[in-house]
């Protein structure tokens, strides 16, 4: 199975592990990730205003490039996934944005949202299948109590993201089970970590992180996993009293598959 792959800026620098382990694991699972040539930064936030066209163009370019290769577009970073998925939805359903974006880009063939944007976790669930993943695990992470931290960007707004039940998601818990560990469900797993304001208002970010950590600890988690470099940074840098180790889910995946 071949995917076009959009790594995004942070995966080339601060979140190299997220990327590296994802590639190794994919290889072990027989999935080929073909990194798009000449991808540009997605912008890290989805511009919500109707008249923000230019800020959506780099996402459209990536989407159109995947369309040209007739492949689904695989993402890993939650922020990139969020931006690409929502821009894609605009290109499919918002005529105003579609027309203008196409006017800017002057592609050979107008882009109208044809590409499927697939997150790595969705790929594991829907393409590989958690059952098959389980069979591929050589080093089950037995006994580890792992809390899945979803954050906001993968889940909301659920109408567009269609990732999982936004209020009671199970995909990462199923993933944790597949790699042989014990998932710890904690209520704040889909709360916002405050990552977007971490630079501007550290205190507010700390408050968010505290709440999340408290909830995770209380429900018995011994470590957390995430798909988002921003959550990773924030959970790590702004945790105050409780501090659980936070890892990228791909690191654990690689560990379980014996490719770390």
């Amino acid at each position, binding site marked *: 199975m071949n995917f076009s792959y959009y790594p995004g800026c942070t995966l080339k620098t601060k979140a190299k592990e997220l990327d590296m382990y994802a590639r190794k694991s994919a290889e072990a699972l027989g999935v080929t990730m073909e990194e798009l040539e000449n991808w540009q930064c997605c912008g890290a936030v989805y511009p919500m205003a109707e008249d923000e066209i230019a800020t959506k163009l780099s996402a459209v370019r990536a989407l159109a490039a995947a369309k040209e290769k007739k492949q689904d577009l695989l993402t890993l970073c939650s922020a990139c996934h969020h931006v690409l998925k929502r821009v894609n939805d605009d290109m499919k359903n918002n005529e105003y944005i579609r027309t203008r974006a196409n006017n800017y880009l002057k592609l050979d063939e107008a882009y109208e949202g044809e590409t499927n944007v697939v997150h790595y976790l969705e790929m594991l669930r829907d393409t590989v299948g958690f059952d098959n993943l389980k069979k591929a695990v050589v080093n089950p992470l037995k006994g580890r109590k792992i809390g899945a931290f979803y954050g906001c960007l993968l889940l909301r707004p659920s109408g567009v993201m269609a990732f999982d*039940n936004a*209020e*009671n998601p199970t995909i990462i818990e199923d993933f944790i089970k597949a790699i042989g560990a014990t998932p710890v469900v904690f*209520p704040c797993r889909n709360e916002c970590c405050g990552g977007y304001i971490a630079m501007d208002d550290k205190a507010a970010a700390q408050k968010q992180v505290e709440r999340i950590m408290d*909830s995770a600890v209380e429900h018995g988690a011994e470590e957390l996993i995430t798909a988002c470099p921003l959550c990773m940074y924030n959970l790590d840098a702004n945790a105050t009293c409780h501090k659980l180790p936070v890892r990228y889910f791909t690191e654990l995946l690689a560990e379980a598959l014996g490719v770390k």
Partner: protein
Amino acid sequence: MQRIGVFVCWCGSNIAATVDVAAVAEAMKNEPGVVYTTDYQYMCSEGGQSRIKQAIKDYNLTGIVVCSCSPRMHEATFRKTAVAAGLNPYMVEIANIREHCSWIHKDKEEATEKAVILARTAVAKLMLNAPLTSGTSPVIKRALVIGGGIAGIQTALDIADAGYEVDIVEKRPTIGGRMAQLDKTFPTLDCAACILTPKMVDAASNEKITLYTYSEVESVKGFVGNFSAKIRKKARFVDATKCTGCAVCTEKCPSRKAKNEFNMGLNNRGAIYIPFAQAIPNVATIDPEYCIHAKTGKCGICQKNCSAGAIDFDQKDEIIEREYGAIVMATGFQPIKLDNFEEFGYAQYPDVVTSLEFERLMNAAGPTKGTLLRPSDLSHPKTLVFVQCVGSRCSADAKDGKPYCSKICCMYTAKHAMLVREKYPDTDVHVFYIDVRTPGKNFDEFQRRAVEQYGVDYIKGMVGKVTKKGDKLMVQGSDLLNNEQITIAADMVILATAIEPDPSAKQIASLLTASIDTNNWMTEAHAKLRPVESPTAGVFLSGVCQGPKDVPETVAQASAAASKVIGLLSKDHMVTNPCVAQSNELLCNGCTTCEKVCPYGAIEYKDKPIVGPGVPRGTIRRVAEVNPAICQGCGACTVACPSGAMDLKGFTNRQIMAEVDAICK
């Protein structure tokens, strides 16, 4: 040749101020077929009508055109006038020169010119009118009530009281419906069972009423006064005539996995069960889904323990065919699924319950025997949070939920809050509300009592998220009046869940060709003036199937529906609308296209001997035949028919084209 009289009404100054009525009358004199014209101040008045009658006699009129207000106003009046003068009522046409002319135009010349054209159009149509006679069809003096909740029971009791036979078909093993699950009823706090069960007994013992429980309507054919229905009586695997309702079997049954529907799945029941102690009929039913004997052929413990020998594993479904004059929908409601409202944690935390589940938790016959214990650990909850409008009042583009107000939640939430505070004064009760809607007799007073006497804390705002911390449910919401976000550490959360029509309603509606709205509520024939009739003649609406209602409203509507049914059944014959489709057998080629578009199934294809010019003697052809008692006269078939064989009486192709010609002249 027609002899037509044209009567132009002034309607006081309503018409005469803008239309030169005399000029209209004068202009009509020259129209072909017109032999008499006049104008008068109020044609609909006694005086006006007697002028019309006189003219019909004096001039031997074969038809009349009245230029007046909308036919929706006085067509019936003038038809009666015509009949009184010996004319066929369908030899009357109305030219609407008030609503469609004088009231919308200011220029008198222009309005007069238009009135002349409208009058001429009516004359042109009338030239092609033919006398029509209403048909009659016999009325079968028996009613079918679908649904055995309080609505169905009340309707059936009232119909039976008037002396007519009624059958109740209920898909569950007992009648009683949702009301049987309720603990107390607002605003009087009567015990629901105490007021419902006597009615259930009445229904069972009334010799005019036949109960078909654990039964479903499979098909309905026919038309008003003359329906025939097939009812599937599902196998209970228990001989109802032998079962004494002793309930020994239900206790001995080793299969305990089935969710107890009556208790909203809060506990389990046996594979053989009686839904509740006062069930009617008080007969056990085996759920083949869970019955070990049904699955494996082994077990049979119920059979061994039944002293009456009532268990019959070989029982088969039974099909009953019956004829009815009227059908009443009383299919009720269910709470919506909360899968898309997981911010409230319903699927994650057992102590988050729906209001209907809460009814069972408060009920003496419920899973906790009436002691309020929270489901997770059966401890006594101290802090309870009620959340109103869960899934109600959601916009169509929201991710889920219903656009309407479920109507009953404000009141039952006040009731629950009050009952909890009364029974357990040590509790804190909070209610998150958007608006409190309490129109109804003694309703607002009731809600005020909850606040003022029982100290229920009403918070204007909505809950955003429920999380769990320790053994508490952290309910985070807004308090809009204090402009703050609050978090309440609660022991239980009760969601006032939106209600929706029972899923069977949609399918039954299509069996009956009765219409439903976008939310699957049954549509009324007229939202204001015919609220208990469906647009399909002979089908009536009782209770919540038409829209959210509380018990007194349901009962009122149930009785209203019953009175409509009684009115229908009291007739020996139905007079049918004569403006129905008619197939010309000489032209019909039997292609069945018309049959495909008829919404009523009024068209049947039959082999018929065809007699006519140029048709060889003894010719038999398969042709369309319209049943005038079923046809409602929409005309869909007339356009589907390429041969022009199908036409609509009163609105024939030629009549409408004559109108077109008159307008475009």
